[in-house]
């Protein structure tokens, strides 16, 4: 690769003209990636919406089988992790290394709580034989207009969408781990913190996906109208 000259800042990759160009490219690149992600989730949201309108009673009944309390707690936990992520970015901007490491670890901890609760929810679905394809034999009395295949369809989407979301969180975990190590070693400074900011964008995006998933799956099942 090209030789680094004396004026070349340490963190500047050789093919960029200056730090501003490098940072702008990183942030813009993440936004473009998030657009891709929106289309990725968008297809499955569209499919969910179509099947929900086709099989409304089954989807509403399925929604009422989810644990709204755990869902609410998880929503709060995840929004909390977005806050700690913002605080981590702020700590990076102001050059507070220990605060940066602390908030990154806190963000990861909240993410772990979320995944823990999610796993517990999955476990209870397994217990109640509500896992499509593997163990699906609902014991509940089905209201009129609700068939087993249609209910299974709802749970297909429930598992597919939440698992895809959880997968994104696990990837976020990997990113955070790297960031924590880099932060601990003092790699970031008020002049160079773009990786923190870019990863923050990703984390917020994953949160926002949940903000849409939660009402779609848990809340709009007619639970509060009867």
């Amino acid at each position, binding site marked *: 690769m*090209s030789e680094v000259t004396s004026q070349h800042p340490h963190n500047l990759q*050789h093919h960029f003209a200056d730090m501003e160009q490098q940072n702008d490219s990183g942030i813009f690149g993440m936004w473009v990636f998030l657009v*891709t*992600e929106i289309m990725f989730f968008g297809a499955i949201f569209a499919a969910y919406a179509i099947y929900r309108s086709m*099989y409304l009673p089954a989807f509403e009944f399925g929604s009422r089988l989810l644990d709204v309390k755990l869902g609410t707690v998880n929503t709060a936990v995840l929004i909390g992790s977005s806050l700690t992520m913002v605080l981590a970015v702020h700590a990076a901007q102001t050059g507070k290394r220990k605060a940066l490491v602390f908030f990154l670890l806190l963000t990861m901890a909240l993410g772990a709580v979320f995944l823990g609760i999610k796993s517990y929810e999955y476990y209870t679905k397994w217990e109640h034989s509500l896992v499509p394809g593997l163990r699906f034999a609902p014991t509940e009395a089905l209201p009129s207009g609700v068939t087993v295949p249609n209910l*299974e*369809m709802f749970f297909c989407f429930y598992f597919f969408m939440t698992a895809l979301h959880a997968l994104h969180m696990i990837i976020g975990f990997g990113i955070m781990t790297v960031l924590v190590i880099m932060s601990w070693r003092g790699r970031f400074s008020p002049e160079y913190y773009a990786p923190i900011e870019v990863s923050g964008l990703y984390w917020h995006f994953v949160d926002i996906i949940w903000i849409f998933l939660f009402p779609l799956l848990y809340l709009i099942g007619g639970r509060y109208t009867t």
Partner: protein
Amino acid sequence: MSTAAVAPPRDSRVNYLNANYGFRSWLLTTDHKRIALLYLMSITVMFFIGGAAATLMRLHLITPGGTLVQPATYNKLFTVHGIVMVFFFMIPSIPAVLGNFLVPLMIGAKDLAFPKINLLSWYIYIVGAGFTLYAILAGGVDTGWTFYTPYSSTYANTQVIAAALGVFITGFSSILTGLNFIVTIHKMRAPGLTWFRMPLFLWAMYATSVIMVLGTPVIAITIVLVAFERLLHVGIFDPKLGGDPILFQHLFWFYSHPAVYIMVLPGMGVVSEVIAAFSRKRIFGYSMVAFSSLAIAVISFLVWGHHMFVTGQSIYAGLIFSVLSFLVAIPSAIKVFNWTATLYKGSISYQAPMLYALGFIGLFTMGGLTGLFLASLATDVHLNGTYFIVAHFHYIMVGGTVMAYMAGIHFWWPKITGRLYPDGWARFAALLIFVGFNLTFFPQFMLGYLGMPRRYATYPAEFQVLNVMSSAGASILGIAYLIPLVYLIWSMRYGKIAGPNPWNATGLEWKTASPPITENFEETPVVTEEAYDYVHMPPMPSSAALAGEGDANV
């Protein structure tokens, strides 16, 4: 920046190809030019795999009863041909090879914005190709490249999951390439290179990238759903279990129609460059051509339903999709008219790239106009599922994209390798491809109009003459594609030294050495004029002058 000023004096014979040696220096490279060559080699292999499948099909169809393979094998052949050619050759062809090589050069940058992600995209492509090749070797797939449900998700007994995974994985390679191009074009243009000074190839790459980024994730998730359904036997697209197979088609074509423009828009970009260079004129209506690329990218997302006129979509949706599909003809026609107007009173020379580009214009026009038959509801009912469709999209994809790809490879080959290829052979191959192509696919228009369905291993005896013509054309085409493979490889060692700008063309890529150095430019170029300033360029050297120029260096 002052990086260039302090660089040590450079040996003029050092370039990106010989800067370092060994497998590691290629497999771990982040140089966009080397990655372009990695892609070039990979997609060439895939092209000949897909081509072999096509050759076997055409041989089989010489007689009405089929001469060569079992019907089930025939199904696998056309599936392999489709999957390999669409996902592993056509979609990466111009963007990942020429785009990778040229985007940084054309904007005066040292590399793409994310060189490591660029390398990653090639590895993802290779993994995806590996899954697909596994699917072929482990018994093949027979769903057609469209993976229509519920056949693919429930009934097919072939390697659907491996092939689907291959398509899913390679999708990320094209997403990452598109992302890289968008960021690079936005953020890394050289000083003075405003949007409306950019070569039209970059506009085409930009529009293509937008489609890649917006469309590819949709098919990715859809393919995962099919695999999920197949593995767990749930009913997402299976009507027996309440699933909607039409929804699969909607999601599939939401990507796969725009994907047609992923394939053809880059070709349009190449043709704009070649037409300007070989008629020594600025492209007529530059901004119209630039905007028509974006218009095609936008409209391409609104027309997918024209693939579903006869598959159970509502008739009113069909009506609207028909109207919207006609709209695509407008920006496409703008391009064709503007290229033609560029030729008017131009000082035209007919070297190989120009022959391919002219071939593109004619064949693309035919492919486009026959598309209007298929966008009309009533005629589509008659023509859908026949060889008319096959002929139509091969006129766009082979007559259009592959011709443009060949034009681009021949136009920039001296830049890529620093060597000229034998122009006589190149022109001969171009003409042979043109003849072979038309002989292969024109009879298919007639066959389709007469009602011969596609994807059948046998056909009634009265269609034999046209089928034999088509197979004869395919043999010519097959041989014609091998000729460039031979002389291009030959030229890498024995071709004449090209010099930085053998065509006296405009554009930043011609202002640096051939082959370029690893950093592309000795110092960051500054752009002060519009693209295609051919008024101030010396004329195109004659073929004789090109052949006699430079040392043979054998």
